[in-house]
């Protein structure tokens, strides 16, 4: 690595973390607010522009899963400019307002959904010192803001004056509200282990990544965040084959684009949140604290790269799931949440809290992780065993019924009826 390149990286890091501007401007009273404004602009711009990359990535990866090439004309061999072309096309489309729409609700929804997603990025630590603002209630803030998106979807569905949109909004609200419960409960466990709600503190507490310490909690969070985002297999809220497109059916042009944008941005945010809470965020085998001999914290840059790689890997997993799994039925989805995930996460909280208190003070991080891991696996095994027992009972009941039918010779008639 040549010296000038290192210098360039240094100035980049200093600019983004505000150190450089603080040196230039000194400590006048207006400096901090100005830095906040710049930071807010940077965070929001990032949240918006990264979506162009995401759309390209998702289309390309999905195409590969379906044995196609994907976008390959606009912007060179790899179709890199496809999202830009799409955005330009949408910019010149007519915005149609349906007759009889509730104008306030209808027009407010696309604004609010983007605002909520961009607001969430404020507490995402990209690298050491590179964060919008380190709120002491970071995760609580994220959950609070993400609840607003439920209201937004209801506004869109209700305001459109369309039956499909309203049905989609009902489904969306029922689903997001339900899956918020296991999501909140599974987020409690990392908070309990880190003893803090701040996103930075949670990252710093992960000498052992929490996915090793509490894998069950990570799994519950992952599943329920899939449902929160409304992605496959939980994409009932925009099932094309059932309710056309769900809550955004009556939107066109850029207003429609805002919903797509918010969907992708929140998918990336949830991947990022998973990385922060369970995969150690910007931590990378201790390299993130590395400082060069010149006093330049190269570790910050390594942390940034590590965080982005982890986040995009998680996003690719989301795309992978979309390319693999079919959609749930609504009753299956609700049952899975209320009869499996919620009781399981309640039991898990109880177990983790008790195990954590039972451990003597001052044991090493790895011992602690091991004990938690074992208790987690045990809880998961018990849950699966209960499921198996229930399934067996149901199957036996069904087989018993069938035998009863056979004895009176009804089965042949039933089979004949089915065949017709």
């Amino acid at each position: 690595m040549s010296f000038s390149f290192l210098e360039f990286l240094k100035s980049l890091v200093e600019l983004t973390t505000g150190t450089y501007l603080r040196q230039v401007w000194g400590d006048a009273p207006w400096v901090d607010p100005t830095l906040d404004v710049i930071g807010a602009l940077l965070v929001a711009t990032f949240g918006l522009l990264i979506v162009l990359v995401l759309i390209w990535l998702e289309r390309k990866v999905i195409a590969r899963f379906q044995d196609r090439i994907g976008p390959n004309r606009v912007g060179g061999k790899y179709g890199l400019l496809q999202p830009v072309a799409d955005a330009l096309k949408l910019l010149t489309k007519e915005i149609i307002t349906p007759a009889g729409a509730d104008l306030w609700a209808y027009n407010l929804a696309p604004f609010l959904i983007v605002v909520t997603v961009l607001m969430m990025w404020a507490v995402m630590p990209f690298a050491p010192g590179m964060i919008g603002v380190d709120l002491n209630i970071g995760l609580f803030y994220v959950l609070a803001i993400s609840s607003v998106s439920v209201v937004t979807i209801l506004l869109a569905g209700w305001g459109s004056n369309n039956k499909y949109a309203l049905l989609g909004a009902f489904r969306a609200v029922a689903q997001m509200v339900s899956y918020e419960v296991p999501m909140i409960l599974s987020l409690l466990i990392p908070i309990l282990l880190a003893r803090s709600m701040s996103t930075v503190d949670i990252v710093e507490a992960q000498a052992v990544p929490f996915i090793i310490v509490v894998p069950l909690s990570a799994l519950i969070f992952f599943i329920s965040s899939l449902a929160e985002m409304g992605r496959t297999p939980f994409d009932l809220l925009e099932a094309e084959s059932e309710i056309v497109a769900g809550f955004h059916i009556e939107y066109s042009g850029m207003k429609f684009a805002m919903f797509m944008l918010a969907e992708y941005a929140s998918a990336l945010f949830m991947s990022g949140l998973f990385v922060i809470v369970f995969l150690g965020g910007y931590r990378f085998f201790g390299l993130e604290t590395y400082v060069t001999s010149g006093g330049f914290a190269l570790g910050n840059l390594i942390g940034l790269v590590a965080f982005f790689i982890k986040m995009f890997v998680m996003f690719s997993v989301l795309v992978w799931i979309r390319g693999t799994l079919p959609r749930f039925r609504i009753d299956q989805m609700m049952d899975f949440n209320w009869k499996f995930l919620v009781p399981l996460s309640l039991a898990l909280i109880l177990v983790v809290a008790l195990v954590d208190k039972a451990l003597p003070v001052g044991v090493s991080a790895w011992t602690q992780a091991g004990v938690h891991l074992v208790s987690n696996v045990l809880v998961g095994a018990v849950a699966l065993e209960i499921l198996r027992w229930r399934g067996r009972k149901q199957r036996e009941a069904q087989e018993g019924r069938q035998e009863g039918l056979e004895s009176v010779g009804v089965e042949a008639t039933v089979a004949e009826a089915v065949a017709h």
Partner: protein
Amino acid sequence: MISDWRFIAFMVVITPLFPALPIGINLLLGPRKPNYIKQQIYECGVETVGDTWVQFKVQYYIYALIFVIFDIEAVFLFPIAAAYGQVGLFAVVEIALFIVILTAALAYAWGRGVLKWV
């Protein structure tokens, strides 16, 4: 601490500009020729019958009620989780009781058939 929220306040002011800009450009660039047919509500090619804003399935309402219980529970559990290092054994038992009572509420709702999607 309170100065942390200044950043959030700026975010609240700045973020609405980001959707406003593309929608504004769209309003300028895009054509605007509304007519009766175009503005009709989409319903697979037929004209929509009756009012859209009808009564909805009561099931949604029940799920929302159960959700409120658990959401309030979260409000209580978050501070406890954050301060878990300082709480004593008595508090731990209390938390356990709290969670058990909530689980009992869920089991009650389950037993009464509330969670059955009809």
